């Protein structure tokens, strides 16, 4: 069985983002870019499944500009066997288009599992996995905090983080899983593996080759700073705090 993992290149999670003065978006030039943390977890899970004998090959896919090859190099250094880069040039592709591209990749690669992060930390959409699942009519296990694969019965048992606790569901393969934070702790790429990754192949594809038509049914009008909270007061004792909450903020 093959596992395909989608990885996204995003502004590093530790960067304090700045909105551009013309409100067209967030400043991304000269900013550290990294693999989306949820995608790292997705890749780690795929690697563990392979290492436990559940899969024979892990293929990493990234969709975006030329620089996505750097993210795919990281994926290869972590242990992915192969990488596919769908080069869309400088344009932004939105989740529905990404889902259609991933469907085309899945139809070509025929994996038993497609694993994605539950959301990307840039647009925070939390859509793509669910959308690919809908397009392929595959079952989905989103927000996974535990995955148990049963190769003989071709099923995956997925524990999901939901509003009221932990939900357990069972999916027939092939299936789609999106990862939550506590699924695993992703490994670091070691230096020898980083060196080895340089000789691994990154296959380049275009949307035309995949026969996917990109359509856009919404537009970003502007990106603005959120309202700033005004600076508060430092109180020195618990008594003063209680007094302020009662008599100034009127919340007690």
């Amino acid at each position, binding site marked *: 069985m093959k596992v395909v993992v989608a990885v996204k290149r995003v502004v590093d*999670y530790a960067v*304090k*983002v700045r*909105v551009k003065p013309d409100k067209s978006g*967030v400043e991304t030039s000269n900013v550290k870019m990294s693999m989306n943390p949820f995608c790292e977890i997705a890749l780690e899970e795929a690697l563990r499944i392979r290492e436990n004998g559940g899969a024979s090959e892990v293929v990493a896919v990234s969709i975006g500009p030329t620089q996505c090859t750097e993210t795919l190099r990281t994926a290869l250094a972590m242990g992915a066997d192969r990488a596919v880069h769908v080069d869309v040039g400088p344009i932004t592709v939105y*989740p*529905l288009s990404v889902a259609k591209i991933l469907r085309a990749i899945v139809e070509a690669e025929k994996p038993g599992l497609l694993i994605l992060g539950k959301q990307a*930390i*840039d647009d*925070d*959409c*939390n*859509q793509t996995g*669910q*959308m690919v699942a*809908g397009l392929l*009519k*595959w*079952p*989905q296990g*989103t*927000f996974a*905090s535990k995955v148990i694969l049963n190769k003989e019965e071709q099923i995956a048992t997925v524990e999901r*983080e*939901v*509003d*009221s*606790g*932990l*939900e*357990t*569901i*069972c*999916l*027939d393969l092939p*299936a789609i899983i999106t990862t939550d934070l*506590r699924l695993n702790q992703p490994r670091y790429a070691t230096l020898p593996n980083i060196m080895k990754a340089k000789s691994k192949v990154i296959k380049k594809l275009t949307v035309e080759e995949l026969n996917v038509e990109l359509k*856009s*049914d*919404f537009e*970003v*009008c502007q*990106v*603005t*700073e*959120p309202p700033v*909270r005004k*600076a*508060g*007061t*430092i*109180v020195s*004792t*618990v*008594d003063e*705090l*209680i007094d302020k*909450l009662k008599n100034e*903020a009127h*919340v007690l």
Partner: protein
Amino acid sequence: ISTLILGEHEGGFLKPSTLSAVSAASSFGKDNSISILLGGSGSDLQKAALHAASTHPVISQVLVADANILMHPLAEPWADLVHLLQKKGAYSYIISASSSFGKNVLPRAAAILDVSPITDVIEISEPYLFVRPIYAGNALCTVRYTGLEPCMVTIRSTSFPPPSIPTAVESSAAPISQVDLSTFYKETGGKSRWLKLTSQETDRPDLGNARIIVTGGRGLKSAENFKLLDKLAEKLGAAVGATRAAVDANFVPNDLQVGQTGKIVAPELYMAFGVSGAIQHLAGMRDSKVIVAVNKDPDAPIFQVADYGLVADLFEAIPELIEKLPEKK
């Protein structure tokens, strides 16, 4: 114009987050016909339908889908149900709360209907103009939907308070109709199965609706120490929240996590103890009306968003608060 709301119910009542979705739907226009879809089986479903029908005059219709497969929030049958209803009803909008249910189901249904969903909306400026936070709330993005109907949206319930009930409720209850499920769910049936839900029994209020929330971070140091916070919550009639660090360290279960990837809350009073204030945590609570931070470290970033900060050892401050706070009725 017409709107279909994916409703959630529990114990025979609509969840407050579904009422928030009703609020959001009301802003699409005055002549909006709002239908609430409820699924499941048994007497709870029928009771919830009655509740929905009489809860607010803006609700024009309640649709009841009675089937065992809809008893649990599985995305596959639910998305197919939405698809089926859209084919019949040709709604202008389909909307749900940004709950774990809505986030799981609505994008799947949108892909089947070949439209882009707009998730986690905090403001509806015009009928097709939405504001949603990006980068963990460090920027706000205004998007215009330009596609075909239906326009599909999930909303943050903290940004849309449930509609106030008009004082003179004279209007009769909305009609309840059963959804014809005879052609439903042939293709994707059975590929996913619901096994169980593990949730904590608690008499604390729900994080999503609590008026006061007390939250603990890594500074609480252990699961045992969280009981101290529990006592304070009891005194205040508050819900208990936690940071990702506290959940990762197994002090408390995942459903208490507040933040970018956990719950989004906006209570009247948010009290953070031993919370450093990572941007991912702030994303989940920055809209609270009054924020209090108690932390030993005077440089903790949480103080930059707190209305009232107290630099103190929380193991001294919490017992003192418990002792000195007035008893809640």
